[in-house]
């Protein structure tokens, strides 16, 4: 299962819900305002950090660039481009978008 989150974790609870439902071995892709959760020093980063043991975390590069956050990405988070986004969708048997 690929979980996709697009809302800021300091404004909505969709990241919390996604992480609560993400089983071991699943993947989480952060896009749009959700990418802030993958940046160093954010209170939301602690949640992402602790989820990393069981879940591979990805963040969409163009969304990080647009927010000036590319240089602040947490270690262990894989940054993907739009092609990588498509690959993730095809590699997993299902997707859940936490809108």
């Amino acid at each position: 299962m690929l979980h996709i989150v697009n809302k800021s974790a300091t404004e909505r609870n969709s990241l919390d819900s996604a992480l609560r439902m993400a089983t071991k071995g699943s993947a989480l892709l952060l896009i749009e305002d959700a990418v802030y959760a993958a940046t160093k020093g954010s209170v939301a980063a602690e949640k992402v950090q602790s989820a990393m043991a069981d879940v591979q975390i990805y963040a969409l590069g163009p969304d990080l660039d647009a927010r000036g956050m590319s240089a602040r990405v947490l270690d262990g988070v894989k940054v993907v481009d739009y092609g990588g986004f498509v690959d993730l969708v095809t590699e997993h048997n299902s997707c859940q978008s936490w809108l």
Partner: protein
Amino acid sequence: MSDMMDDMEEGGEGVVKKFMFVNRKAPHGTIYALEGLEVVLISAAFDQDVSMVFVDDGVYELIKGVNTKGIEVKDFSKTYRALEGYDIEKLYVEKASMDARGLTEDDLIVDVTVLDSNEMANLMAEQDVVISY
């Protein structure tokens, strides 16, 4: 706003009120940040006492080093630098909001005054008009 315009038309000088624009949204996920900035620029034409404050995710609006080419939207972060040219020089950021996001003044594209939450609350309380995005 209509009272304000009437005052200006009748008296010439007009009444100057304290306006605060509160920005609480990250820049690109919604249209609020860009539209809020547009309203502030328009407000400059009315010669009012304008303050712009950034709290919660609003502090992300001021991050420097932005490149929006990949998502193909306007990079309006540089517009905050133009505010000074419109005599909008009162920019305030709440410290707790920056701390919660691992940010410091050095990460911001414009000079701001950093306030603690009590100072921000008092500033907000002394306004005539507060408009929030």
